[in-house]
């Protein structure tokens, strides 16, 4: 096997034709890159082998269709969001494989970089993809901190970016003409959870509990604000540090409060521990549990908590039982993966939006304002449903589902759509 083929980012999957990988002249071998960086030298010339393998680089506009489009993805392949990052990559790879590795008639080169869930790392990787690998567009990011750090980097470099973090600020103060946001903001989920709680619990006193970091603060804060606006009563507001090893003390406190309902937000390992211990302390089934977003993620959390989350309600823009995602679910599981959760779907949807953008711009992103205008002119059909964009901030307008965790036919837990709030639009710059 040619060693060039083993480089994981070059090709998107096994289905790629084994011949003629498209190597741009700027791409260098690892050692060359390191040596050049250490020495502060300019990019090395392509080696003989690379030159003969590479497509002749022809910059004429007539041939833009033949030139590959390079998509750079930044995601977390190590650090706390590793599993989510792998899902996001898998979703994107699935879409590219389905498209035969061609978008709008152009072959695709897909490069993935690991941000370790660290902002500075993400910024450096983005600069590398832009400055050294010369990608045509960027996408990705799990952590909102990384997304916010990338905002100025891609705006300054004028690189079209499909940014997937969900901090509210990304649709507001940090919105940028170069950033499209084909995913939710935290506000969309927090506010719909409050509306549902208000409609169904008829004014119950709700205790909130959240992971004390930016996303937790937004999920809980937006819920509390809307719930109180609607006339609901809040009980105690509990916060716990990110990465809590033991939720026993917190759950004992909650049990002693005897709340009528609990609204919470946790993610990843915190969500798993909280839910399992929620059951161990016999709160499951006795106190109604609400949540939002990743708290009950289908792929990341539910398989690890058994039936501990059974009956819990969560607002989410993703659900495996939403009709729009049926085709994606099947295709995703056909690759040997479990029922998809948020980030595999998000990765796939991101690909769908990128494909729509390229198709509407005839494969040419040189005039980004025009391509962007074409994208925003009509909704895109995605696995999240029909997705229009808010031209003020490039933010997707989304249907938000209220999911209940139910036991599926085969016994596994499934986020099942109870109700859908349609066309949620973040207040955006007006907020």
């Amino acid at each position, binding site marked *: 096997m040619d060693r060039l083929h083993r480089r994981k980012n070059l090709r998107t999957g096994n289905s790629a034709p084994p011949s003629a990988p498209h190597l741009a002249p700027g791409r260098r071998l690892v050692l060359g890159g390191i040596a050049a960086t250490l020495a502060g030298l300019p990019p090395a010339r392509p080696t003989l082998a690379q030159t003969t393998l590479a497509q002749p680089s022809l910059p004429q506009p007539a041939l833009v269709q033949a030139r590959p489009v390079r998509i750079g993805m930044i995601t977390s392949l190590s650090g706390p969001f*590793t599993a989510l990052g792998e899902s996001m990559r898998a979703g994107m790879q699935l879409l590219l494989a389905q498209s035969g590795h061609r978008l709008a008639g152009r072959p695709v080169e897909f490069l993935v970089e690991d941000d370790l869930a660290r902002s500075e790392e993400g910024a450096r990787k983005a600069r590398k993809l832009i400055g050294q690998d010369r990608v045509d567009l960027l996408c990705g990011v799990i952590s909102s901190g990384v997304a916010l750090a990338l905002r100025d980097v891609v705006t300054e470099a004028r690189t079209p970016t499909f940014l997937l973090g969900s901090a509210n600020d990304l649709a507001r103060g940090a919105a940028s003409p170069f950033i499209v946001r084909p995913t939710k903001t935290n506000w969309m989920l927090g506010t719909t959870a409050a509306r549902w709680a208000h409609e169904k619990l008829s004014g119950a006193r709700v205790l909130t509990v959240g992971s004390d970091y930016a996303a937790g603060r937004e999920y809980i804060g937006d819920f509390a604000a809307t719930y109180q606006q609607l006339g609901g009563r809040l009980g105690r507001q509990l916060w*716990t540090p990110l990465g809590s090893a033991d939720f026993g003390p*917190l759950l*004992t406190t909650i049990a002693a409060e005897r709340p009528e309902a609990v609204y919470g937000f946790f993610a990843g390992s915190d969500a798993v521990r909280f839910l399992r211990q929620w059951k161990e302390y*016999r709160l499951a089934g006795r106190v109604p549990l609400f949540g939002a977003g990743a708290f009950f993620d289908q792929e990341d*959390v539910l398989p*690890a908590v058994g039936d501990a989350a059974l009956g819990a309600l969560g607002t989410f823009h993703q659900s495996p039982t939403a009709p729009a995602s049926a085709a994606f679910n099947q295709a995703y599981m056909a690759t040997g993966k479990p029922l998809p959760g948020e980030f595999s779907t998000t990765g796939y949807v991101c690909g769908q939006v990128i494909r729509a953008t390229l198709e509407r711009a005839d494969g040419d992103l040189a005039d980004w304002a025009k391509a962007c205008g074409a994208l925003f002119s009509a909704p895109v059909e995605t696995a999240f449903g029909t997705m229009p964009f808010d031209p003020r901030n490039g933010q997707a307008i989304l249907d938000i589902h209220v999911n209940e965790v139910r036991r599926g036919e085969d016994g596994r837990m499934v986020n099942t759509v109870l109700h859908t709030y349609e066309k949620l639009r973040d207040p955006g710059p007006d907020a």
Partner: protein
Amino acid sequence: MGYAIVQTLNALSFSALLLLTGLGLSVVLSLMNFVNLAHGGFYLLGSYVAVLWLGSGAPWWLAFPAAFLAAGLAGAVLERFPFRRFYARPHLMQVLLTYGLSVIMADLMRWGFGAQILTPELPAALQGVVFLFDMPFPLYRLFLIGAGVALGLLLWLLLDRTLWGAVLRAAVTDRGIVETLGIDTRHLFAAVLVLSAGLGGLSGALGAGMLAAYPGLDEEVLILALVTVVVGGLGSFGGTVAGALVVGFALTFSKVWFPEFANVVAFSAMAGFLLLRPNGLIAPPLRQI
């Protein structure tokens, strides 16, 4: 009333977990003066083995010896090379070597077990709950407290009340004298390291029901264990027990009283404590000159 009792039991169960992880670390530290930052890796390996075992349908209680053996085996391999060459080196070099090894172990485990969060299917016998004054407390945590006490006692008996323990303590004080008695101290030290690694794996198996298993947990556990051992004062069995109690109660009751600032309060308290007693709770008497 029930609230106070259950919170105290919460603290005790967390202390038991800290004791289990801390003991493995403190055994090699106190007996061999070896700092092993790969201990978190042994813990996580034990967790993964237990999760897989409990999911496989084999008798559940065998999961714990299986985790002990798996981690002990990993420890035996690492002991042959390269730990053995670093027993006499300064702490800094040991810290560096074992930290590097822990990075390698973590990545190998992520490779082998995936990045998903895994949790064990606890047997029905451990899933129950007891009510104390109307407050629920999981049976599993009582089991943890029991395991912590039992293992602590067992280890203490082994090291303090058996001939093997006596020889070991003698070898620590003067390796040469023990070797003149015809005892191969290399085997002795290897056995201690395997025991410590096995303890790490066992605590991982016991702790999986509480902490789950996922990449990065090794580091979190390692730090808790290190803090436990250091707060207790290096190199004594009683110190580790005391450290586990102090750290367990500090972390638990900071969550009870100041849930929002739990970590700041607990870390500041422990830092303040170490500033006041720079050698931990129970410092072995040391003559400098």
